[in-house]
């Protein structure tokens, strides 16, 4: 996750090699697989500046390839990397006053993920399975997924169900010396010894089960709607092993301590409406969320897609999210003056009462050969996207109050045969 300087050049070389391999795979496959072959690469740059330090920068390259073997069987493979650099306070504490927490720790880390899978599609149904493995210096994750879908009533309905299980492992400081007293828990200082048989670190397990049913309804020739739910159960270590929280008036700064068990529920409704006269469409949806840590949230999103001529597609996107705090969350000032809310404490912005707004503009260039039989591809897509994400926190003592906006840039290139 952080605090270990990992060679980023190696990650860049790996990403470049994966890109070349994906494109070579796509170029070689058309001779054996006639249709549904695709290679796509994408790079996302995420920048969250801070008023106090260097903020966070993430470079996220992705490459994916898919190939059809016959008319029903498809293979997919992908590779992605997160190259993260930045600075963040190790201790969550007040920003002003006698016990003000100042200074930030610089960190750099790289997370890799490889995935592979297959799908088998029939005219009215299909099923698929995939596996992914993600690793970084202090976190490893194996995930298996299975999905199935079935069309009903003349293809007017699609019932789909997806299930994913994660077998994750997290590195942590060996807190045997704490003697079972959570106020004595000490954070991990470095990931240098993680996943080795060293006495100063331990490995915790985290299992995640995610179940996602959905029902899609083709309501009219212009309108398609979808409703569904997400149920997720997490069981295991979920704290940030590096983070300290200033708790109480006696200058105690134990490691962040969060519950090991969490149940999360989301229900959503989405729709897409065609505007044929304008060569455009409107898509959007709402999501309602609640979990066993007492967070409730509502999210709304709308997209306007507009063709400009035959080859250019413009997409405008707006999104709003609002949530309440977790039951054990307090501001840094409250943790100090009132103490923790029970046996748990956190400095995580995700668990604070907050809202955010996202605005996005995307342009895609699409090249299709039309009826030319000599064309060796069916579509080339080149796209660029810029986004801004604005955070609104309710207190200057909230986590990451110094980072109120994030900028995201994204570019992609896809070739379909």
């Amino acid at each position, binding site marked *: 996750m952080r605090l270990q300087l990992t060679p980023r050049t190696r990650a860049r070389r790996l990403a470049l090699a994966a890109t070349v391999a994906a494109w070579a795979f796509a170029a070689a496959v058309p001779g054996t697989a006639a249709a549904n072959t695709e290679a796509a690469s994408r790079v996302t740059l995420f920048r969250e500046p801070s008023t106090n330090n260097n903020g966070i920068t993430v470079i996220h390259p992705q490459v994916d390839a898919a190939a059809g073997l016959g008319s029903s069987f498809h293979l997919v493979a992908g590779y992605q990397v997160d190259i993260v650099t930045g600075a963040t306070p190790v201790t969550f504490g007040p920003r002003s006053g006698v016990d003000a927490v100042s200074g930030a720790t610089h960190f750099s880390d790289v997370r890799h993920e490889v995935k592979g899978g297959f799908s088998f599609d029939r005219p009215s149904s299909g099923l698929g399975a995939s596996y992914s493995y993600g690793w970084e210096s202090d976190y490893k994750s194996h995930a298996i997924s299975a999905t199935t879908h079935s069309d009903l009533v003349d293809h007017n309905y699609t019932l789909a169900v997806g299930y994913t299980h994660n077998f994750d492992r997290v590195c942590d400081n060996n807190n045997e010396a704490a003697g079972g007293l959570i106020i004595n828990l000490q954070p991990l200082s470095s990931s240098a010894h993680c996943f080795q048989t060293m006495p100063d670190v331990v490995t915790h397990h985290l299992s995640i089960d995610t179940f996602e049913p959905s029902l899609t309804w083709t309501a009219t020739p212009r309108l398609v709607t979808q409703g569904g739910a997400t149920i997720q159960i997490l069981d295991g270590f979920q704290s940030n092993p590096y983070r300290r929280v200033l708790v109480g008036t006696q200058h105690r700064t134990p490691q962040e301590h969060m519950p090991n068990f969490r149940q999360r529920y989301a229900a959503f409704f989405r729709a897409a409406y065609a505007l044929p006269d304008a060569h455009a469409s409107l898509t959007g949806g709402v999501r309602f969320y609640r979990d066993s840590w007492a967070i409730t949230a509502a999210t709304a999103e709308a997209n306007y897609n507009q063709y400009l001529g035959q080859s250019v597609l413009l997409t405008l996107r707006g999104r709003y999210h609002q949530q309440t705090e977790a039951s054990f969350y307090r501001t840094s000032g409250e943790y100090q003056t009132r103490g923790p809310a029970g046996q748990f404490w956190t400095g995580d912005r995700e668990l604070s009462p907050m809202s955010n707004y996202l605005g996005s503009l995307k342009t895609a260039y699409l090249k299709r050969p039309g009826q030319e039989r000599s064309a060796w591809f069916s579509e080339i897509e080149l796209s660029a996207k810029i986004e801004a994400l604005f955070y609104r926190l309710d207190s200057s003592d909230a986590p990451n109050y110094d980072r109120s906006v994030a900028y*995201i840039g994204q570019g992609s290139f896809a070739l379909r045969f």
Partner: protein
Amino acid sequence: MLYQSRSRKKRLRATGFRLQGWNGFAPSDDRTPFLKPEAGSPKPARWLLVACALALLAGGCATAPGLATVKPHQRELLADRIMNLDGDPQERAADQHMLSNREGAVGGSGTAGGGCGCN
């Protein structure tokens, strides 16, 4: 603070936590409740079960015989990429990866391979 209209205590009870009295761990505030999850698993939220029941009911009613359906020759608009609810899967994965690390909520973005019923 957001959502202050609902009391903290009410929200805690609704989500499987109970208040254990007022003499908890807090070093400086005797009003601090000592929170512990209830023994066993918290029950699923009632509102989610109601939403699922309504969705199933709506789906069942809509699939009743005699209701009009969209014919294959009427699906030209629906087959266009701009009518795909999930958008590009690679872009969707990148967006979800970014947002799930910055919000307390997850999910609600459909099932992979859920389709649009437009084939």
